[in-house]
């Protein structure tokens, strides 16, 4: 069976620290203003603010990499055929082909593709394909010292990622969109 790379993000262990976001920036050299990864607060209106009335409050975080959908809406709308899904499930934007129309930005239900105004193209998380191709993990996974991220082959029933998703009842975001994301979360609550 071909590989289908995917990720499990354990919201019970996520402390909302943004180390993943900075790791992504360091690894992929994205300019100021373009972030392939972000951490949203599930709580109040601002970063790191809870929901409720003091002292009865709740707060969680939602780290958002590309979902690397098995049915990627971004690829489906791209008029330049610049977005492709590799045999291992990683969805990539070919910057050479991208015409900067930003249809994908509009189509992605997760707000993932980022327009790089300086380059005139759209960019996004690659699951660090350059590292994965060398047998390494995406850098955000490696950099999460809090054990909140697990990466691996969703088609391998013995993989750590599959086991973690089963054990922690991992759920994908917005499954009703039919996108079949490859990123699963524990404790997913509706934002």
């Amino acid at each position, binding site marked *: 069976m071909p590989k289908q790379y995917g990720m499990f993000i354990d919201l019970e262990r996520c*402390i909302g620290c943004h180390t993943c976001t900075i790791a992504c920036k360091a690894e992929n050299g994205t300019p*100021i203003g373009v972030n392939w990864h972000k951490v949203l607060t599930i709580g109040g209106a601002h970063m790191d603010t809870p929901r409720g009335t003091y002292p009865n409050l709740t707060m969680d975080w939602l780290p958002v990499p590309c979902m690397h959908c098995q049915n990627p809406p971004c690829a489906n709308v791209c008029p330049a055929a610049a977005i492709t899904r590799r045999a291992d499930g990683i969805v990539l934007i070919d910057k050479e082909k991208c015409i900067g129309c930003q249809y994908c930005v509009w189509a992605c239900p997760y707000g993932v593709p980022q327009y790089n105004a300086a380059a005139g193209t759209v960019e996004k998380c690659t699951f660090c394909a350059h590292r994965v191709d060398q047998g390494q993990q995406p850098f955000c996974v490696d950099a999460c010292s*809090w054990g909140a991220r697990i990466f691996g082959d969703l088609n391998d029933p013995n993989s750590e990622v599959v086991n973690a998703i089963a054990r922690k009842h991992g759920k994908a975001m917005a499954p009703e969109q039919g996108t079949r994301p490859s990123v699963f979360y524990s404790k997913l609550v509706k934002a």
Partner: protein
Amino acid sequence: MAISRRDFLKISAATVAAASLAPGTDAKVLQALTPQTAPMPAGETQIFHTVCPGAGDHQRCGVKVHVRDGRMVKVEADDFADPRYHKNACLRPLASMRWVYSPDRLKYPMKRVGNRGEGKWQRITWDEALDTIASKLTEIKNKYGEKAVHIRGSSSSTNGQLMRALPQRFSALWGPSVTKARGVIDANLPVATALVTGTVYGSVAHSPLDWRNSKLIVIWGENPAETDMRDMTHLLDARDAGAKLVLISPFFDPTAAKVDEFIPVFPATDAALALSLANVIIERGLYDEDFVSKFTNLPLLVRQDNKKFLRESDVTSGGDAKKYMLWDSKTNAAVAIGVGVNEIKGVTPTLLGSFTIGNFACKTAFQLLKERAAQYPPEKAATLTKVRTEQIKSFAAEYATTKPVYTKISHGSARTYQGPGIVRSQFYIAALTGNIGIPGGGIGYEGKDYEANLNTSAVSAPLEKSRAVTYTDTYSQYWTNVATGKGPYPIKAAILSNAAWVNYCGNSREWIEKIFPQLEFIAVCDPFMTATAQYADIVLPGQTQYERLDIDTALGTIRLCEKAIEPLYESRDNYELWTELGKRLGFGDYFKNTPEEYISMMLNSKDPTVAGITPPLTLERLKQAKYVRPNVPTTPYIAFRERKFPTPSGRMELYDERLIPFGEELPDFKEGYESPRTSPLASKYPLVFYTKKTRFNTQSQFRNVDWLLEISPEPILEINPADAAERGIKDGDVVKVFNDRGSCKVKTKFHDGMPPGVVNIPHGWFPNQFIQGFASDLCAPVTPPEKVDNPMSLVATAIDSAAGPGELLYDCLVEVAKA
């Protein structure tokens, strides 16, 4: 040199080259140094091993630095020598490359040509700078004596044992100058720890590996999810292993989001909460009788006439004046007990009661504690602390009936005038419930492990008898003396490296208006033009951790801190600064070693933690291995495993007769320097003002890093929407935060996790990042007009030289109004 707030906002808003707007920045240099605009260097990647440069959180995590063509291209976590510790690096070291290559770096030495703080500088050579410093020091020495020079060699933002040892080497040779000198902030935790346990505060914590043995972990007054992030990993592991996590804090912050129970204590009322917990535990008989009897001084009899412990010599002629007395319930008689004796065969100490022995009416110390705690029934504590009565009762019972319990304390609840009393009262709960010296138990600060004892004194103490002194007065008394020109150390000159007082040490206006004018000469060595450096006469471009060789011993690992890149610009470090000054001031003979030789001297330690390493640890071996486990046990470190306490009684000193003159023999809830309940100021300034630490900075370090500014771009005021509504303030409004000491303008951020009546501007921002003013202008004074030094410190400084009250950061009232 420093870039304006508008510039910072532009960086965060999207422009790649905003940093180039900084005046005085060579655009070509910037281009070469900015990864996004410079092509990725070609060539082989070299890996260097060192520690994170952000030491303000004291975690000293190992990092690997990727270098290509002499330029840092990435930082990632490095392993610890014990693989049971997760490798760990948070966003700060990962972003630190941008700090190293920041266009704001000081690039060459400069001398002041305008007034202090005016920002007018002239470039000079290192030789001129060092010659000037040397001649100024000599001049001041001739005029006022050696004591007039304050040598502040490093702050917590300088990692590495060598960088800390070298300024000490210099001061040992210079003369009776002040090195440590209550520049040590945050001393309230050491004060309390020293009093209760007789030991330095760093040694009381348990290994984070031991937290997995805890059934209940109480995080009290800390936010480790942001400020002790490595510890947070282990707390999550403990939770996964079945421990319940509880947070006692005023703030629903990132740590609160991860715990099972949040106990919302109002700022600075922690002692009332602790005494109420003690009340419930004692009234319900839930204390650990065996531990209290054997290992605390609570069973000892206290004379009612002078509050001192009854001694054998008080009741028996020829009795031992050192022996205490306790009451044996079997024979109904007083029995003498020596220092450090935990039990006497056949004697069962009575814990509670009043007794008459000879002419003396006595009570057990435990009886006195019971009476003190009885003044804080949960209903009364609830009104002070704003914790619900039911929660106080249920938490007290849970704490006392669960074992083991680890209590993780920190500076958060200690940074007030009553801080030492608060921390002592926290120790009481751990002691009453017998959670001391057992796996999974304990009460302590950051997670720690056995550490290697390098022979640092080979570097720091070159003379048999050091001429340096550690000043024994308290922090605020010391600076009050400087400000008023009184006291034994009439400081007239200061050399500071990596110490940004104005940015983080209490009220900034005091430094600028009261203390600095007393100093005839100030030299600052720092990688950046800090708010403190702006008031210097000479500024020197300092290096970052990555630009020098050093050695570190954090968390059971001896780690070589390799020099990863060549120093940028003309930057130098403590090695060159103190070596060159030493040569110019006549002790060049003591400054002939290279950094490698100094490190070899440190490795040549007779302490078994180092001497017992096989094969023997040499610099060569360390260069190969990068990090080595010291010769220490593999079982997790547990403080007081032997339950020996080097206190006057040899037991945990819960009743402290040394503090009778101050009415502090038992901790009590007392109002702070400024209280929203009792201060006359409260009618004008009803809000408690905090400057909380965040994950984006350690003290003022990293507040100018563009990658971090993207996420947290500017100072904001966090306020509960109810407090804002009362003042007609809307979310995002620019407000003025003010009191009699100062004011600043910032945007508001509605935050339901802020307790009503409390506001916060996160800590560490530079003055030029505020719309107007500076948050530290509002803080409680460094040199208070009234004598507010807590007298406990005078006792505690004798035990731990780091003790002595720190600044009163959180005893501060303000008002907020729409700007």
